[in-house]
């Protein structure tokens, strides 16, 4: 009985399909989308043209290239072109960004040179004090005697009643 060797066995069913093989089952008859490049491949080739290519295959070695491989080649070229364009546009945008930053730095430096920095401590303390030393804040009102609060209440109540009537 012959011994089975692993090297002799074929594991064809586990072999993953290549991209080209997958392209065969594509349903788009007008062009094949390959990495974003639509290839204007004529899928509906006439039988005469096919015969003519078969005949010329014997003389011209490049004619042996199948339709499938042509599409792959054109897709590769197309993707290379698009890569170049994208690369160029990115480089240009980086250059313009750098120029913009440089201009901004120059402008801000000019602005900084011509700006005089002042700190108005008096105004600052006054504004802070007005926030905390509000006569009518609850904390400050609590420090007052009740009679004062009664007078203030009567005054403000009168003022509010009159403002509603007006």
């Amino acid at each position: 009985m012959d011994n089975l060797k692993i090297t002799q066995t074929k594991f064809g069913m586990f072999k993953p399909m290549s991209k080209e093989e997958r392209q065969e089952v594509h349903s788009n008859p007008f062009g094949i989308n390959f990495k974003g490049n639509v290839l204007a491949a004529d899928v509906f080739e006439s039988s005469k043209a096919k015969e003519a290519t078969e005949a010329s295959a014997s003389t011209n070695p490049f004619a042996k290239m199948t339709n499938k491989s042509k599409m792959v080649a054109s897709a590769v070229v197309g993707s290379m072109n698009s890569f170049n364009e994208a690369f160029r546009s990115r480089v240009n945008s980086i250059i313009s960004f750098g120029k913009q930053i440089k201009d901004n730095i120059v402008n801000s430096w000019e602005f900084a040179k011509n700006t005089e920095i002042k700190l108005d401590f008096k105004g600052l303390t006054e504004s802070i004090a007005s926030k905390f030393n509000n006569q009518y804040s609850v904390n400050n009102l609590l420090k007052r005697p009740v009679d004062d609060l009664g007078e203030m209440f009567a005054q403000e109540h009168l003022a509010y009643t009159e403002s509603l009537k007006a």
Partner: protein
Amino acid sequence: MKTINKIDNIIEALCKHEDPKSVSILEEIGTNSEIDEIREKTAHALIRKNTPESLRVVVASSGKGINDLSARVAMSSINEILSLNDKTEVLKVLEETMNSEEKSEVKDTARSVKALITYSM
């Protein structure tokens, strides 16, 4: 600062003030005001004070606090009483009012509020 905000702060200060005279000031000016908004704020302050004197003003006085003629003031006063954390003082004052010689309307209101507190506890 707006006048109403000043009044708010004065009422709040009187609410927090420990001097017992603050209750009489709130009663005299606040609960006798012709403006609903001020009567409402004063009633809230007196309830939050949570002393027997301040609670008597809003519970046992006719036309003030829970007995106010304005439904908005009366209802918000009842709501403030219900939101008190410690209701022992208010329950005592309500009990007092129910057994006092006050008007029957005042007694009825006190009884209703007491029932509400009992159910909400």
